[in-house]
Protein backbone atom coordinates (compact mmCIF):
# COMPACT_ATOMS: atom_id res chain seq x y z
CA UNK A 1 0.00 0.00 0.00
CA UNK A 2 2.72 2.48 0.81
CA UNK A 3 4.36 1.53 -2.45
CA UNK A 4 1.42 3.18 -4.18
CA UNK A 5 1.86 6.19 -1.98
CA UNK A 6 5.58 6.24 -2.62
CA UNK A 7 5.27 6.00 -6.36
CA UNK A 8 3.83 9.32 -7.25
CA UNK A 9 1.25 10.38 -4.72
CA UNK A 10 3.92 11.80 -2.44
CA UNK A 11 2.21 15.11 -1.94
CA UNK A 12 -1.12 13.47 -1.22
CA UNK A 13 0.38 11.21 1.42
CA UNK A 14 0.35 11.63 5.11
CA UNK A 15 1.72 14.73 6.72
CA UNK A 16 2.54 14.72 10.42
CA UNK A 17 -0.08 15.53 13.03
CA UNK A 18 0.74 18.51 15.18
CA UNK A 19 3.03 17.32 18.03
CA UNK A 20 4.31 14.54 15.81
CA UNK A 21 7.76 14.77 14.25
CA UNK A 22 6.86 12.64 11.24
CA UNK A 23 3.64 11.03 10.03
CA UNK A 24 3.59 7.33 10.86
CA UNK A 25 0.35 5.82 9.57
CA UNK A 26 2.05 2.44 8.98
CA UNK A 27 3.35 2.19 12.53
CA UNK A 28 2.02 -1.35 13.25
CA UNK A 29 3.63 -2.71 10.06
CA UNK A 30 6.77 -0.62 10.58
CA UNK A 31 7.13 -2.03 14.09
CA UNK A 32 6.87 -5.59 12.75
CA UNK A 33 9.58 -4.89 10.18
CA UNK A 34 11.69 -3.25 12.90
CA UNK A 35 11.37 -6.36 15.07
CA UNK A 36 12.37 -8.63 12.18
CA UNK A 37 15.32 -6.40 11.26
CA UNK A 38 16.45 -6.40 14.86
CA UNK A 39 16.30 -10.21 14.92
CA UNK A 40 18.30 -10.36 11.70
CA UNK A 41 20.86 -7.97 13.15
CA UNK A 42 21.26 -10.09 16.28
CA UNK A 43 21.52 -13.42 14.46
CA UNK A 44 23.35 -12.49 11.29
CA UNK A 45 24.34 -8.92 10.49
CA UNK A 46 26.09 -7.90 13.71
CA UNK A 47 28.05 -11.18 14.02
CA UNK A 48 29.06 -10.92 10.35
CA UNK A 49 30.08 -7.26 10.82
CA UNK A 50 32.13 -8.07 13.92
CA UNK A 51 33.86 -10.93 12.07
CA UNK A 52 34.55 -8.72 9.05
CA UNK A 53 35.80 -5.91 11.29
CA UNK A 54 38.09 -8.17 13.32
CA UNK A 55 39.45 -10.34 10.51
CA UNK A 56 39.98 -7.69 7.83
CA UNK A 57 42.44 -4.92 8.82
CA UNK A 58 41.12 -1.37 8.97
CA UNK A 59 43.08 0.04 5.96
CA UNK A 60 41.76 -2.78 3.75
CA UNK A 61 38.18 -2.19 4.91
CA UNK A 62 38.56 1.52 4.31
CA UNK A 63 39.91 0.86 0.82
CA UNK A 64 36.98 -1.41 -0.01
CA UNK A 65 34.49 1.16 1.29
CA UNK A 66 36.28 3.86 -0.72
CA UNK A 67 35.87 1.82 -3.91
CA UNK A 68 32.17 1.33 -3.14
CA UNK A 69 31.75 5.06 -2.42
CA UNK A 70 33.65 6.00 -5.55
CA UNK A 71 31.20 4.03 -7.68
CA UNK A 72 28.29 6.06 -6.28
CA UNK A 73 29.88 9.32 -7.54
CA UNK A 74 28.53 9.23 -11.14
CA UNK A 75 25.06 8.84 -9.67
CA UNK A 76 25.72 11.74 -7.27
CA UNK A 77 26.95 13.90 -10.15
CA UNK A 78 23.74 13.12 -12.04
CA UNK A 79 21.64 14.02 -9.00
CA UNK A 80 23.64 17.25 -8.65
CA UNK A 81 22.67 18.13 -12.22
CA UNK A 82 19.02 17.21 -11.60
CA UNK A 83 19.05 19.46 -8.53
CA UNK A 84 20.52 22.30 -10.59
CA UNK A 85 23.46 22.31 -8.19
CA UNK A 86 26.55 22.93 -10.31
CA UNK A 87 28.97 22.75 -7.40
CA UNK A 88 27.66 19.34 -6.33
CA UNK A 89 27.73 17.99 -9.89
CA UNK A 90 31.27 19.23 -10.53
CA UNK A 91 32.54 18.14 -7.12
CA UNK A 92 31.25 14.58 -7.63
CA UNK A 93 32.56 14.43 -11.21
CA UNK A 94 36.05 15.63 -10.29
CA UNK A 95 36.14 13.33 -7.28
CA UNK A 96 35.25 10.41 -9.54
CA UNK A 97 37.91 11.25 -12.13
CA UNK A 98 40.66 11.94 -9.58
CA UNK A 99 39.96 8.98 -7.31
CA UNK A 100 39.44 6.53 -10.19
CA UNK A 101 42.87 7.42 -11.63
CA UNK A 102 45.28 8.75 -9.01
CA UNK A 103 43.28 7.02 -6.30
CA UNK A 104 43.78 3.58 -7.92
CA UNK A 105 40.18 2.83 -8.94
CA UNK A 106 38.86 4.54 -5.85
CA UNK A 107 40.88 2.56 -3.33
CA UNK A 108 42.35 5.83 -2.02
CA UNK A 109 40.69 9.20 -1.70
CA UNK A 110 43.24 11.81 -2.87
CA UNK A 111 40.38 14.13 -3.91
CA UNK A 112 39.50 14.80 -0.25
CA UNK A 113 43.10 15.81 0.43
CA UNK A 114 42.85 18.21 -2.51
CA UNK A 115 39.88 19.90 -0.85
CA UNK A 116 37.14 18.08 -2.77
CA UNK A 117 35.42 16.44 0.16
CA UNK A 118 32.53 14.05 -0.27
CA UNK A 119 29.25 15.98 -0.55
CA UNK A 120 26.92 12.99 -0.70
CA UNK A 121 23.52 13.16 -2.32
CA UNK A 122 20.82 10.89 -3.71
CA UNK A 123 17.56 11.00 -5.62
CA UNK A 124 15.67 11.39 -2.33
CA UNK A 125 17.40 14.75 -1.99
CA UNK A 126 16.60 15.54 -5.61
CA UNK A 127 12.92 14.92 -4.85
CA UNK A 128 13.24 17.22 -1.83
CA UNK A 129 14.82 19.93 -3.99
CA UNK A 130 11.99 19.51 -6.49
CA UNK A 131 9.50 20.22 -3.73
CA UNK A 132 8.21 16.75 -2.89
CA UNK A 133 7.21 16.28 0.72
CA UNK A 134 8.87 13.77 3.02
CA UNK A 135 5.75 11.59 3.34
CA UNK A 136 5.24 8.91 5.94
CA UNK A 137 7.94 7.16 7.94
CA UNK A 138 8.82 3.65 6.75
CA UNK A 139 10.97 0.80 8.06
CA UNK A 140 12.11 -1.17 5.05
CA UNK A 141 13.41 -4.76 5.28
CA UNK A 142 17.21 -4.90 4.81
CA UNK A 143 17.32 -1.14 4.41
CA UNK A 144 16.10 0.17 7.74
CA UNK A 145 14.54 3.56 8.46
CA UNK A 146 13.30 5.56 5.48
CA UNK A 147 10.43 7.73 4.34
CA UNK A 148 8.12 7.53 1.36
CA UNK A 149 10.25 10.15 -0.39
CA UNK A 150 13.57 8.46 0.47
CA UNK A 151 12.38 5.00 -0.58
CA UNK A 152 11.13 6.38 -3.91
CA UNK A 153 14.54 8.06 -4.27
CA UNK A 154 16.37 4.77 -3.68
CA UNK A 155 14.24 2.98 -6.27
CA UNK A 156 14.87 5.68 -8.87
CA UNK A 157 18.59 5.85 -8.03
CA UNK A 158 18.85 2.12 -8.72
CA UNK A 159 17.29 2.61 -12.17
CA UNK A 160 19.13 5.72 -13.30
CA UNK A 161 22.59 4.92 -11.89
CA UNK A 162 25.03 5.62 -14.77
CA UNK A 163 27.42 2.93 -13.51
CA UNK A 164 24.73 0.24 -13.77
CA UNK A 165 23.70 1.50 -17.19
CA UNK A 166 27.16 1.30 -18.78
CA UNK A 167 28.71 -1.65 -16.92
CA UNK A 168 28.06 -5.33 -17.66
CA UNK A 169 25.91 -7.36 -15.26
CA UNK A 170 28.86 -9.24 -13.76
CA UNK A 171 30.27 -5.90 -12.73
CA UNK A 172 27.00 -5.00 -11.03
CA UNK A 173 27.21 -8.23 -9.03
CA UNK A 174 30.74 -7.30 -7.93
CA UNK A 175 29.54 -3.84 -7.00
CA UNK A 176 26.76 -5.36 -4.86
CA UNK A 177 29.39 -7.31 -2.90
CA UNK A 178 31.36 -4.12 -2.37
CA UNK A 179 28.24 -2.44 -1.05
CA UNK A 180 27.57 -5.31 1.33
CA UNK A 181 31.16 -5.07 2.61
CA UNK A 182 30.77 -1.31 2.98
CA UNK A 183 27.59 -1.78 5.01
CA UNK A 184 29.22 -4.39 7.25
CA UNK A 185 32.09 -1.96 7.82
CA UNK A 186 29.61 0.78 8.81
CA UNK A 187 27.82 -1.63 11.14
CA UNK A 188 31.17 -2.49 12.74
CA UNK A 189 32.50 1.07 12.90
CA UNK A 190 29.38 2.47 14.57
CA UNK A 191 28.65 -0.63 16.62
CA UNK A 192 28.35 1.25 19.93
CA UNK A 193 25.86 3.76 18.57
CA UNK A 194 23.81 1.24 16.60
CA UNK A 195 23.81 -1.50 19.25
CA UNK A 196 22.96 0.87 22.11
CA UNK A 197 20.06 2.30 20.11
CA UNK A 198 18.76 -1.11 19.07
CA UNK A 199 19.32 -3.09 22.25
CA UNK A 200 19.42 -0.65 25.14
CA UNK A 201 16.55 1.73 24.36
CA UNK A 202 13.21 1.42 26.09
CA UNK A 203 11.61 1.80 22.65
CA UNK A 204 14.19 1.15 19.94
CA UNK A 205 11.62 1.72 17.19
CA UNK A 206 10.86 5.25 18.43
CA UNK A 207 14.56 6.02 18.88
CA UNK A 208 15.54 4.73 15.42
CA UNK A 209 12.74 6.78 13.86
CA UNK A 210 13.72 9.94 15.74
CA UNK A 211 17.43 9.59 14.94
CA UNK A 212 16.81 8.89 11.26
CA UNK A 213 14.32 11.71 10.69
CA UNK A 214 16.33 14.35 12.55
CA UNK A 215 19.60 13.40 10.87
CA UNK A 216 18.05 13.15 7.41
CA UNK A 217 16.42 16.57 7.71
CA UNK A 218 19.72 17.97 8.90
CA UNK A 219 21.47 16.51 5.83
CA UNK A 220 18.85 18.04 3.59
CA UNK A 221 19.45 21.37 5.31
CA UNK A 222 15.87 21.48 6.35
CA UNK A 223 14.06 22.10 9.57
CA UNK A 224 11.00 20.21 10.65
CA UNK A 225 8.72 19.56 7.71
CA UNK A 226 7.21 22.86 6.65
CA UNK A 227 8.34 24.49 9.89
CA UNK A 228 11.04 27.03 10.58
CA UNK A 229 14.03 26.97 12.86
CA UNK A 230 11.90 27.90 15.87
CA UNK A 231 10.40 24.42 16.08
CA UNK A 232 13.72 22.64 16.32
CA UNK A 233 15.19 25.40 18.43
CA UNK A 234 12.37 25.34 20.98
CA UNK A 235 13.09 27.21 24.19
CA UNK A 236 12.58 24.99 27.26
CA UNK A 237 12.66 28.10 29.44
CA UNK A 238 9.54 29.52 27.80
CA UNK A 239 7.47 26.62 29.02
CA UNK A 240 9.43 24.02 30.93
CA UNK A 241 6.38 21.75 30.96
CA UNK A 242 5.87 22.07 27.23
CA UNK A 243 4.38 19.02 25.62
Amino acid sequence: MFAVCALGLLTACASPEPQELVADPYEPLNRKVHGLSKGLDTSLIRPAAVTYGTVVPNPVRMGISNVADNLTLPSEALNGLLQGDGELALNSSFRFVINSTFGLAGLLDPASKMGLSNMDTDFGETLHVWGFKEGAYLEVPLMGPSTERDLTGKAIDAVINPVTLVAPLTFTAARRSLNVADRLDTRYRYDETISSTLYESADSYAQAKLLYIQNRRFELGQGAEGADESEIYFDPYEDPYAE
Partner: protein
Amino acid sequence: MLNNSITRRNVLFGASALTFVSALPAVALTEAGATKLINSVIGQINSVIASGQSEAAMIKQFENIFVRYSDVPTIARYTLGVAARSASASQLRSFTDAFTGYISRKYGKRFREFMGGRLEVQQTKAVKSFYEVKTLAYLPGSAPFDVTFLVSDKSGKDLFFNMFIEGVNLLLTEREEIGAMLDRRGGSIDSLIADLQRAG
Protein backbone atom coordinates in the same frame (compact mmCIF):
# COMPACT_ATOMS: atom_id res chain seq x y z
CA MET B 1 -6.63 63.29 38.47
CA LEU B 2 -6.22 60.27 40.68
CA ASN B 3 -6.18 58.03 37.66
CA ASN B 4 -3.58 60.18 36.09
CA SER B 5 -1.25 60.01 39.07
CA ILE B 6 -1.61 56.25 39.27
CA THR B 7 -0.85 56.05 35.63
CA ARG B 8 2.13 58.26 36.14
CA ARG B 9 3.31 56.13 39.03
CA ASN B 10 2.92 53.04 36.87
CA VAL B 11 4.84 54.72 34.15
CA LEU B 12 7.54 55.71 36.60
CA PHE B 13 7.67 52.21 38.01
CA GLY B 14 7.79 50.85 34.51
CA ALA B 15 10.56 53.22 33.63
CA SER B 16 12.64 52.26 36.64
CA ALA B 17 12.04 48.62 35.86
CA LEU B 18 13.28 49.29 32.35
CA THR B 19 16.37 50.99 33.72
CA PHE B 20 16.96 47.95 35.86
CA VAL B 21 16.51 45.62 32.93
CA SER B 22 18.71 47.69 30.67
CA ALA B 23 21.37 47.64 33.35
CA LEU B 24 21.34 43.84 33.21
CA PRO B 25 23.02 43.15 29.86
CA ALA B 26 26.32 44.09 31.48
CA VAL B 27 26.16 40.73 33.26
CA ALA B 28 23.82 38.97 30.80
CA LEU B 29 24.81 36.42 28.22
CA THR B 30 26.80 37.72 25.28
CA GLU B 31 28.08 36.09 22.15
CA ALA B 32 31.56 36.12 23.63
CA GLY B 33 30.25 34.63 26.88
CA ALA B 34 28.48 31.80 25.08
CA THR B 35 31.57 31.05 23.01
CA LYS B 36 33.72 31.11 26.14
CA LEU B 37 31.43 28.65 27.92
CA ILE B 38 31.51 26.18 25.03
CA ASN B 39 35.26 26.61 24.66
CA SER B 40 35.57 25.58 28.32
CA VAL B 41 33.24 22.63 27.76
CA ILE B 42 35.11 21.36 24.73
CA GLY B 43 38.47 22.06 26.35
CA GLN B 44 37.45 19.72 29.17
CA ILE B 45 35.95 17.17 26.77
CA ASN B 46 39.11 17.22 24.62
CA SER B 47 41.29 16.59 27.66
CA VAL B 48 39.08 13.68 28.78
CA ILE B 49 39.25 12.18 25.27
CA ALA B 50 43.02 12.63 25.18
CA SER B 51 43.55 11.20 28.68
CA GLY B 52 42.72 7.65 27.62
CA GLN B 53 41.43 6.78 31.09
CA SER B 54 39.27 3.81 32.02
CA GLU B 55 35.59 3.87 31.07
CA ALA B 56 34.50 4.40 34.68
CA ALA B 57 36.83 7.38 35.09
CA MET B 58 35.62 8.91 31.80
CA ILE B 59 31.99 8.56 32.88
CA LYS B 60 32.79 10.33 36.15
CA GLN B 61 34.59 13.13 34.29
CA PHE B 62 31.72 13.48 31.87
CA GLU B 63 29.27 13.76 34.77
CA ASN B 64 31.36 16.60 36.24
CA ILE B 65 31.35 18.47 32.92
CA PHE B 66 27.61 17.89 32.47
CA VAL B 67 26.75 19.14 35.96
CA ARG B 68 29.08 22.13 35.82
CA TYR B 69 28.32 23.48 32.35
CA SER B 70 24.73 22.48 31.57
CA ASP B 71 21.38 23.39 33.08
CA VAL B 72 20.63 19.89 34.34
CA PRO B 73 17.34 20.71 36.17
CA THR B 74 15.84 22.29 33.04
CA ILE B 75 17.03 19.47 30.79
CA ALA B 76 15.72 16.84 33.21
CA ARG B 77 12.33 18.51 33.61
CA TYR B 78 11.96 18.93 29.86
CA THR B 79 12.68 15.26 29.19
CA LEU B 80 10.11 14.24 31.78
CA GLY B 81 7.53 16.15 29.72
CA VAL B 82 3.93 16.42 30.98
CA ALA B 83 4.69 14.03 33.83
CA ALA B 84 6.78 16.82 35.40
CA ARG B 85 3.51 18.62 36.14
CA SER B 86 2.20 15.91 38.45
CA ALA B 87 5.57 15.15 40.05
CA SER B 88 6.23 16.34 43.60
CA ALA B 89 9.24 18.53 44.36
CA SER B 90 11.09 15.62 45.94
CA GLN B 91 10.26 13.33 43.00
CA LEU B 92 11.62 15.97 40.63
CA ARG B 93 14.82 16.17 42.69
CA SER B 94 15.32 12.39 42.71
CA PHE B 95 14.46 12.24 39.02
CA THR B 96 17.02 14.95 38.24
CA ASP B 97 19.71 13.05 40.20
CA ALA B 98 18.90 9.73 38.55
CA PHE B 99 18.73 11.42 35.14
CA THR B 100 22.20 12.98 35.67
CA GLY B 101 23.72 9.56 36.35
CA TYR B 102 21.86 7.99 33.43
CA ILE B 103 23.01 10.64 30.92
CA SER B 104 26.59 10.48 32.21
CA ARG B 105 26.77 6.70 31.83
CA LYS B 106 24.99 6.67 28.48
CA TYR B 107 27.13 9.36 26.85
CA GLY B 108 30.29 9.00 28.95
CA LYS B 109 30.60 5.41 27.72
CA ARG B 110 30.81 6.68 24.19
CA PHE B 111 33.90 8.81 24.79
CA ARG B 112 36.07 5.91 23.73
CA GLU B 113 34.77 6.32 20.17
CA PHE B 114 36.09 9.87 20.20
CA MET B 115 39.64 8.93 21.13
CA GLY B 116 42.16 10.74 19.00
CA GLY B 117 39.54 13.30 18.07
CA ARG B 118 38.75 16.86 19.08
CA LEU B 119 36.01 19.51 18.95
CA GLU B 120 36.52 23.04 17.62
CA VAL B 121 34.19 26.05 17.91
CA GLN B 122 33.19 27.38 14.49
CA GLN B 123 30.73 30.20 15.08
CA THR B 124 28.27 31.62 17.57
CA LYS B 125 25.03 33.40 16.77
CA ALA B 126 22.02 34.70 18.69
CA VAL B 127 18.78 32.74 18.23
CA LYS B 128 15.66 33.87 20.10
CA SER B 129 16.70 34.45 23.72
CA PHE B 130 19.77 32.21 23.56
CA TYR B 131 22.94 31.52 21.60
CA GLU B 132 23.77 28.77 19.19
CA VAL B 133 27.41 27.67 19.26
CA LYS B 134 28.40 25.51 16.30
CA THR B 135 31.38 23.22 16.69
CA LEU B 136 32.99 20.63 14.45
CA ALA B 137 34.09 17.24 15.69
CA TYR B 138 37.20 15.87 14.04
CA LEU B 139 37.61 12.11 14.31
CA PRO B 140 40.44 10.13 12.78
CA GLY B 141 39.28 8.38 9.63
CA SER B 142 35.97 10.16 9.19
CA ALA B 143 34.74 13.46 7.79
CA PRO B 144 34.24 16.23 10.41
CA PHE B 145 30.71 16.36 11.78
CA ASP B 146 28.57 19.05 13.31
CA VAL B 147 28.00 19.35 17.08
CA THR B 148 25.90 22.36 18.12
CA PHE B 149 25.30 23.63 21.66
CA LEU B 150 22.51 25.97 22.77
CA VAL B 151 23.50 28.31 25.60
CA SER B 152 21.21 30.37 27.85
CA ASP B 153 21.55 32.42 31.02
CA LYS B 154 17.90 32.02 32.06
CA SER B 155 18.91 29.77 34.94
CA GLY B 156 20.94 32.67 36.39
CA LYS B 157 24.20 31.36 34.97
CA ASP B 158 25.56 30.84 31.47
CA LEU B 159 24.84 27.16 30.83
CA PHE B 160 24.11 24.99 27.82
CA PHE B 161 20.66 23.40 27.73
CA ASN B 162 20.63 21.43 24.50
CA MET B 163 23.03 19.76 22.11
CA PHE B 164 22.69 18.61 18.49
CA ILE B 165 24.91 15.98 16.90
CA GLU B 166 24.47 16.01 13.11
CA GLY B 167 21.00 17.40 13.63
CA VAL B 168 20.02 14.93 16.36
CA ASN B 169 18.58 16.85 19.28
CA LEU B 170 19.47 15.59 22.76
CA LEU B 171 16.38 17.01 24.49
CA LEU B 172 13.94 15.59 21.96
CA THR B 173 15.64 12.20 21.77
CA GLU B 174 15.83 11.80 25.54
CA ARG B 175 12.25 12.96 26.08
CA GLU B 176 11.08 10.22 23.71
CA GLU B 177 13.20 7.65 25.56
CA ILE B 178 12.20 8.79 29.06
CA GLY B 179 8.57 8.84 27.87
CA ALA B 180 8.92 5.21 26.67
CA MET B 181 10.48 4.18 30.01
CA LEU B 182 7.64 5.89 31.86
CA ASP B 183 4.99 4.19 29.68
CA ARG B 184 6.58 0.83 30.39
CA ARG B 185 6.09 1.54 34.10
CA GLY B 186 2.47 2.54 33.67
CA GLY B 187 3.35 6.19 34.32
CA SER B 188 4.87 5.63 37.77
CA ILE B 189 7.57 8.25 38.30
CA ASP B 190 9.06 6.37 41.27
CA SER B 191 9.54 3.21 39.17
CA LEU B 192 11.02 5.33 36.39
CA ILE B 193 13.52 6.80 38.87
CA ALA B 194 14.48 3.31 40.04
CA ASP B 195 14.95 2.19 36.41
CA LEU B 196 17.02 5.26 35.56
CA GLN B 197 19.41 4.57 38.39
CA ARG B 198 20.39 1.38 36.59
CA ALA B 199 19.96 2.45 32.94
CA GLY B 200 22.48 4.00 30.59
